[in-house]
């Protein structure tokens, strides 16, 4: 469905003809983000260059009652940037300005299209960095990080995006521009900044972000602990925290993923290990060695058969490359896999991982695990054969059972990938009707006509049946949700 010619004309007047696209190839290319389970083509794609253009475009769409949504780099894994049929997609890639940086305030202003890693690059000369580091950080945008409240391996100690953003400039669905927060780190009154972070592009389109920067650690100590069982690795995680130590990162990788990593990246991880734990400590030189020794003792006491220390920056970088590209590496042993994202209390890790393996076994599926163990944020990767409809159905069922397990353990449906389209049908299992309605009431303050990013977060009538009822379609869709290399 192409744009109404009158609307197109108005949009071209504002954005220029190169930046209003509704040809079939463009629309096809934007039919999904990192989640390809529910593809839908936009009516058109717009590429505003700055806030004023965005406001003008949003006003035109809003006047016409056409729904629209922002998109960053499209690496989201829950379908937040997937258009509903007929929506206009607003690509934020041209919002690329970085700076100014204020080293005294430890803040930097960036536009939402800036790539996550580039913020830390800009801050580095001042000895500062931007903490949120999703594994997709070479590609994903800061606007997308704000949209999803993204995390990453290093958020255990320092928190997620909401803890590192102090101000936003936002365009509301009717074109009104508002500022939330600011350089003062706190504004009196209800914390609207926190509300917008993680709202998955359903409350407003972010056009400027004030990121809070954190001092780079003087020294970093990275260890790789090797275990003969997943249970021992999990118990070590709890033992470290119980000892009063919160490492900067605490990541776990199981045997299947280790093997995939060794086939592709060759990080030197032992392929006969059942699990490895990456433990990273950061501090002043003087504080670190004693803490590292203490952790090594804990790891060995909990069954680590080997504890390796990264000798230099190159070794450390290789460990992190292996961790951050693990999803992609898995493509080498299974062409299709489905990435889940759920959270449980950390102390339940041993029990829940066993349960996940049992869920896989009951469905005849292999489930691999690479995840943020310190946060209890699981990423089970369900390997499946995309040519086998029964297996695809089983994959859906296993994914659902995993999330139900997380909820039953007192956990949550998502730790960092968001709800989007993917999990909206499970939201009524996580929240009662009153709480969901209250969320909708809040959405109505900012997005009263639901023109902005409709169909996300909240259960949609019929979606559950849709998922269950079309295994043939699901085959193609699930196949595509596999090993995106970044």
């Amino acid at each position: 469905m192409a744009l109404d010619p009158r609307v197109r004309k108005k949009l071209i007047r504002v954005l220029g003809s190169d930046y209003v696209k509704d040809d079939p190839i463009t629309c096809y290319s934007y039919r999904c983000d990192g989640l390809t389970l529910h593809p839908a083509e936009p009516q058109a794609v717009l590429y505003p260059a700055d806030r004023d253009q965005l406001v003008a475009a949003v006003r035109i769409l809003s006047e016409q009652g056409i729904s629209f949504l922002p998109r960053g780099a499209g690496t989201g894994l829950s379908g937040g940037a997937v258009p509903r049929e007929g929506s206009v997609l607003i690509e934020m890639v041209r919002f690329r300005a970085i700076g100014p940086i204020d080293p005294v305030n430890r803040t930097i202003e960036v536009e939402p299209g800036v790539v996550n890693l580039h913020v830390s690059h800009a801050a580095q000369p001042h000895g500062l960095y931007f903490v949120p580091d999703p594994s997709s950080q070479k590609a994903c945008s800061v606007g997308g990080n704000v949209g999803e409240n993204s995390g990453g391996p290093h958020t255990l100690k320092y928190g997620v995006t909401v803890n590192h953003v102090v101000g936003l400039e936002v365009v509301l669905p009717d074109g009104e521009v508002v500022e939330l927060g600011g350089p003062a780190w706190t504004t009196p009154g209800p914390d609207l900044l926190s509300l917008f972070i993680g709202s998955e592009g359903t409350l407003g389109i972010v056009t400027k972000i004030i990121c809070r920067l954190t001092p780079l650690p003087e020294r970093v100590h990275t260890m790789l602990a090797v275990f003969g069982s997943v249970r021992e690795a999990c118990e070590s995680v709890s033992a470290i925290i119980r000892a009063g130590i919160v490492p900067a990162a605490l990541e776990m990788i199981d045997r299947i993923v280790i093997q995939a990593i060794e086939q592709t990246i060759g990080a030197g991880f032992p392929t006969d290990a059942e699990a490895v734990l990456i433990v990273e400590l950061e501090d002043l030189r003087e504080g670190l060695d004693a803490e590292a020794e203490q952790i090594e003792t804990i790891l060995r006491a909990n069954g680590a058969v080997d504890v390796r220390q990264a000798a230099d920056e190159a070794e450390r970088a290789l460990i992190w490359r292996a961790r951050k590209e693990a999803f992609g590496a898995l493509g080498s042993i299974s062409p299709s896999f489905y990435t889940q994202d759920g959270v449980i209390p950390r102390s339940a890790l041993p029990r829940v991982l066993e349960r996940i393996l049992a869920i896989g076994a009951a469905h005849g599926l292999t489930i691999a695990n690479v995840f943020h163990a310190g946060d209890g944020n699981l990423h089970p990767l369900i390997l499946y054969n995309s040519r086998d409809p029964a297996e695809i159905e089983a994959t859906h069922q296993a994914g659902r059972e995993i999330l139900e397990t997380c909820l039953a353990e007192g956990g949550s449906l998502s730790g960092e990938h968001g709800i989007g389209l993917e999990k909206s049908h499970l939201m009524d299992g996580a929240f009662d009707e009153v709480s969901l309605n209250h969320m909708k009431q809040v959405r109505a303050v900012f997005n009263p006509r639901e023109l902005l990013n409709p169909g996300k977060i909240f259960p949609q009538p019929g979606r559950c049946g849709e998922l269950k009822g079309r295994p043939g379609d699901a085959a193609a869709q699930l196949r595509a949700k596999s090993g995106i290399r970044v």
Partner: protein
Amino acid sequence: MSPSSSPGAFTVFQPGNPDEAAALLADRTRTGQPLAVVDRIPEPGELRRDVLSVRQWRNQRFFHPADMVVGVDSGLPMAELHRLLAEQGMRLPVGCWFAGDSVGAVAAANRFGPERLMRGGLRDSLIGMEYLTPTGECVRVGGKVVKNVTGYDLGRMMLGNRGGLCLMTGLNFKVMPAPVQPHGLFLSAPDSSWRAGVAAAHAARLPLDWLQAVWRDGGWLVGIGISGNAARRERLVTELRSMFGQPLTLFADGREEAPFDVFAPEHRLCGFLSPHIPLSRLGLHVHGLFPTRTFLESVDLDGLATPGDILVVHPIGGDFHLLAPSDSAAERQVSQLRDRFSEERGSLVFEKVPTALRERWGRVDPLPPERILMKRLKRQLDPAGILVSSFFD
């Protein structure tokens, strides 16, 4: 249920549990009678309307130190929560401002404190909330795990709502292990020349646990928290001493206690407010929220307070509290603050000022740009205006 007391024409409601509170709110919505959520029950003469207090809800709902999470009733005193956490070697980075402050009160004002620079405020620790809407419906958002992006973060949104959007009934927090071997360094100075030392420590990116400067009795007392093993502390002490160029006194702290409460009274930095100025006698309280640069470079902090007042400054992060025992000089003091901070990007919150001044300036000066959204939110969530809060006037 209560009304437990009825001084004058107004009623103080103290519901025994959230269900009773929900019934009260639903009834108030039906009859269109507003009330105010209060932490402390006002003296009879101070009552201006019906009030609702939840201080009697003091239960710990869960505490799993190994998972670094705790959940409590909103009426639990903050100090009690800290004691509970300290027993297990854990800590929340926000203490109590006034002795007896409840967790709900600290959350409703979105307070932070001396640990702000490294560990943030309540906003950075909140993981879940249960609250009642003005119509008495019970909403549960967030959860009990340390990482969660499921649905809108209405819990964090409610921080700072000052009783105008909901009645908080339960709060869940992520907690962290308490600092190992905490120590405090202290410095006395007649003027704010200490700022140069703080600026140097900040520029050197030293990992300090907390930082607070207090002006009282005509001079400044600056406290800096450090922790860790002996070698780490020694390095920090050496560097800080050279940066400040003034004598810094070192005090050791007990491991299981909150860093600020263990020092002899004359050196206490936190928990000192009420012994010095009892709340009932507090005449003026202005809270300023400004960028770090404001405190380290642009605004002259000397002369803001007059003898008898207390000025508490957290320069990195950054905010100040001006507390005066009497409101006799309030007009002059507030004008001076407004002049001095007028060029800065931030806000002054008039927590307690004479009514005439409040009427002239409102509660916040200048009004935050998102103020208009906050008012829209109030209209949407509390159309009948049942929860009275001067913040939304």
